[in-house]
């Protein structure tokens, strides 16, 4: 790949990120309400409110606030959370970790299983299995996460009692070994993982099936068959070609994983980024909300960048050339 292309693409990414940051900064200031409102107003005297505003730098003109924010951010300082009174990173990182151990495995599994299922369904076009598979994947796909979540909670927690109701760890369990802690978290993780998997796998199945359908009747497959390649090998060639759009979609899906799944995290009381983000917006905790949105935007934008770079490898017909 050409170096100049990579450089210009990275420059573009930086500009995009800057635009996202600015836009978010402006948007949060446009939202009606005030960070001090979380102190249950009424009981605060106007002087106290003014003092807090001054402490947080909210009394300064907007453009001063903006430049200060940008300056601090450029030095890696995301600020201090209004509500937690702690550096934003210290609030964000544990939540991000929690989100990722839920989202990354479920999305990866959805991609692998979904691609295998989808390409197989596409290959067996017109069979009864294909029709059932498509209906089923559309069905799980169109079920809202909170509904699936509640149904799953009812069956596996309420009726069967196999799994804990929510959260990430058993409350009050101390002195566990590393291995016991791992088992405990896995036990809590199982249900939200399953629900997230079901939600994401539908789209992957549908996309990879469609992509595979487009392969059927391709001359290079017929030619491969004419060359005496077995059906299995021909199918492999079809899958290799069909997988390209799936990879695009998957990478972007992983980008979104950094933002968490708000509904899922609420239903299963999972202490992730999604909940943190919604919470911060509600109480006007600008530093945390901005950081959370910034993180998600960065992940999606970088995922897009990686997709662009991977295309040259995935599909040799796409080459990057100077115009």
């Amino acid at each position, binding site marked *: 790949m050409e170096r100049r292309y990579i450089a210009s693409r990275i420059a573009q990414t930086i500009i995009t990120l800057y635009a996202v940051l600015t836009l978010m900064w402006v948007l949060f200031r446009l939202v009606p309400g005030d960070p001090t409102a979380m102190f249950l107003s009424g009981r605060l005297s106007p002087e106290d409110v003014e003092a807090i505003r001054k402490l947080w730098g909210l009394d300064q003109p907007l453009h001063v606030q903006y430049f200060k924010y940008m300056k601090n951010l450029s030095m890696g300082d995301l600020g201090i959370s209004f509500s937690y009174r702690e550096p934003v990173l210290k609030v964000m990182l544990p939540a991000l970790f929690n989100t990722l151990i839920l989202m990354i495995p479920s999305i990866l599994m959805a991609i692998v299983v979904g691609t295998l299922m989808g390409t197989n369904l596409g290959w067996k076009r017109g069979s009864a299995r294909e029709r059932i598979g498509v209906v089923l994947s559309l069905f799980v796909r169109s079920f809202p996460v909170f509904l699936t979540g509640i149904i799953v909670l009812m069956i596996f927690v309420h009726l069967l009692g196999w799994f804990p109701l929510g959260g990430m760890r058993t409350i009050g369990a101390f002195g566990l070994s590393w291995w016991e802690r791992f088992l405990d978290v896995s036990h809590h993780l199982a249900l939200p993982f399953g629900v997230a998997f079901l939600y994401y796998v539908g789209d992957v199945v549908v996309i990879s099936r469609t992509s595979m359908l487009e392969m059927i*009747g*391709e*001359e*290079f497959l*017929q*030619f*491969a*068959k*004419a*060359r*005496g*390649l*077995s*059906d299995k*090998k021909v199918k492999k*060639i079809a899958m*290799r*070609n069909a997988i*390209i759009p799936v990879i695009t979609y998957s990478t972007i899906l992983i980008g979104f994983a950094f933002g968490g799944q708000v509904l899922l995290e609420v239903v299963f009381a999972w202490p992730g980024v999604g909940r943190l983000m919604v919470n911060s917006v509600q109480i006007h905790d600008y530093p945390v909300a901005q950081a959370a949105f910034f993180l998600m935007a960065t992940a999606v934008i970088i995922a897009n960048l990686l997709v662009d770079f991977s295309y040259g490898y*995935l*599909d*040799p*017909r796409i080459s990057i050339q100077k115009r």
Partner: protein
Amino acid sequence: MQAAIENENEMLLQVDDLKVDYQMEGAVGRAVDGVSFALRKGECIGLVGESGSGKSTIAKAILKLLPSNGALAGGRVILKGRDISHFTEEEMDAIRWAEISLVPQSAMNALNPVQRISSQMVETFLAHQAKADSRKTLLDKCQQLFEMVGLSRNRIFDYPHQFSGGMRQRATIAMAIALEPSVVIADEPTTALDVIMQAQIINLLKSLSEDKGVSIILITHDISIVAQICQRVGVMYAGRLVESGDILKVFNNPFHPYTMGLKAAFPTIKELKKTLISIPGSPPLLTKRLEGCCFSDRCPFSIEQCQRVIPHTVTIREDHYVACHRIEYAERFRKEIIDIFGTRVRGQS
């Protein structure tokens, strides 16, 4: 080209009374209707006819690569004395390419776009070898093949899109002869190419046939290409073989009005003043059940019998066969057909 008449032993491939049906939205269309021909060792035969006459379907039927709505409705395909028309998929996988290979019409789409040509060639070898040669040996073999068809050996590591149309067709020809098959079916190998490339590819096929003794079935709508490399020809119309035999006999003294029309429809450099004709009308619908001769609707010499009775294929002379009710008037027809349909070549009127 009548299979039964020939000596069985020197016959490489015999197609005997081949019938292919296509399921088409409720109706059944017969794309190939009782076609018989034979291919001798080292021989090059041409199948000509317009689009939809069933030429390519014959190729697919021989290789058992018919689309899912197509099926063999009768007849046999005998390769070296074995009837392969009833072979299973696994048995066919061994026949395909090792015994019968294919040069496709559109080399552009026939090669896998995301795989290097080298690995596509190597995988073809590997599919047919029980104990495989080393990759290096195979690669070297493939590079030799590349040189044989006039491509530089280093280009083997390219992707298909890095090749021009002519180069791609050369690459598929290199692939087609890789396993030294007894029969190469070339399905309109030059249709997608410009005239210069056409000439080069034809020369390449010709040299393969003459120098390497490769037997070729050339499928085309261009009788001038057939005339260049084939010893024998079969003229197809609406799924039937209307006339066949030695190329000089068929084209110099055609007995079927369709062959006469086809011949007169192509201009030649030698006869610039020649009158070109076009036959009005179009072939019958695939789904139409034909009572009589398939050409009777368009034939200017058609009589009542032609509409009613399917003509038998008769032997005019050695290696010249025609399916027409009115062969005794052929000489008169040859003259009249120009007058009936004649339009002057542009610039000559």
